[in-house]
């Protein structure tokens, strides 16, 4: 059996959806034989690999780095699954859109900071924030959406199960926005 080449990535989210993934508990053992995990917070690979069958993406797109990597992910993956509300709606990560990134930087680096002596935002090494936080599908084509905050483990399991077996499921039975 050819194993499914899997990648998972955590962009602008809280890692809760990845935690939910682990919450599949013993079902992970059932799923493990089907997958080769090439890239993920769970493994230690630095570069996003090529020829990925499925990439599961948690989190919204908030920085120029996020935007760059999601394009690479799209180019290198057959299928993309948007996992959780941040990836699908922007959710908590996009709440700063109501105030704009500038106001958030202002607050974080000036108003609340005691030691920012040279009075500048960090602008090298760290990625630059986009003007707007956006959900994945505003930047690239997304094949599957699995909402929830975090997406319940049951929903992840049913979805992965369906993908392995090539069946279609009605995900609204297992999850919804805010679940």
């Amino acid at each position: 059996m050819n194993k499914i080449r899997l990648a998972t990535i955590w962009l602008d989210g809280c890692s809760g959806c990845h935690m939910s993934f682990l919450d599949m508990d013993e079902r992970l053992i059932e799923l493990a034989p089907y997958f080769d995990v090439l890239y993920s917070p769970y493994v230690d690979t630095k570069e996003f690999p090529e020829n990925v069958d499925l990439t599961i993406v948690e989190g919204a797109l908030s920085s120029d780095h996020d935007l760059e990597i999601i394009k690479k992910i799209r180019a290198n993956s057959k299928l993309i699954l948007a996992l959780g509300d941040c990836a699908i709606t922007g959710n908590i990560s996009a709440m700063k859109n109501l105030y704009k990134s500038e106001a958030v930087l202002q607050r974080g680096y000036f108003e609340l900071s005691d030691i920012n002596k040279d009075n500048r935002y960090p602008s090298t090494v760290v990625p630059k924030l986009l003007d707007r936080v956006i959900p994945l599908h505003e930047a690239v084509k997304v094949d599957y959406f699995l909402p929830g905050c975090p997406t319940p483990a049951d929903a992840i399991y049913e979805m992965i199960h369906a993908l392995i077996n090539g069946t279609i499921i009605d995900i609204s039975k297992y999850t919804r926005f805010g679940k």
Partner: protein
Amino acid sequence: MIKQKVRVKSFKINDITVTGRSDQTLLEVAKEHDIFIPTLCYLEGLSCVGSCRLCLVEVKGARELVPACTSKIKEDMEVFTTSEKIDSHRKMILSMIFSERSHTCSVCEANGDCELQDKSVELQLDHSLVPYIDSRFAIDASHKNFVHDPNRCILCSRCVRVCNEIEGANAINIGGRGINSMIIHDMDEPWIDSQSCTSCGKCVYVCPTGALYEKEITKEDVTTKREIIRNLLKNRAENE
């Protein structure tokens, strides 16, 4: 008032022959025949305004889809309540409702108890088909019991109607224009300063979303109060 003569009409919904009174709407007749049509601004016991457009159906021969909640029935009309076209229109409408304000369900008062959220499940909308607008409105928490958060409002006007038609206080109106419209109290003053509001809470318990909610109340009490008010509306509708 001159009462129009009410006649019985028969027509077809999804190829099933149904009958209704000439003063009934498509939605009412469909409900009587257990034919399901999704609704959001409609609430039994209140007038119908057709503001959300989720109840759109196809009428044979009509160029555009029509809202079932405000369309009167006609003899021999042929109505369809589902089709690819209808489904895609409903999904687009729901997307536009979601994108117009900020619906961050995970931090919303109504999470898990919201008719808008329920619609996303019902219509199987798993992502918005249009980009979010990122509008922000000030929250009015001035009232001692209630909060108005326009960021969750879908402008269905249920609150306006219940306050006017049932409570008779007429304390709420829709102010502003288009996408920036908001419900306002009296002449657009903080809720607490409204002279007409009786603090009855009816608006709060007909609101389908987290736009109106009561402070410091348990889930159980919310359910009880909502039931009391919704039953009151139902009973009034039946006795009319």
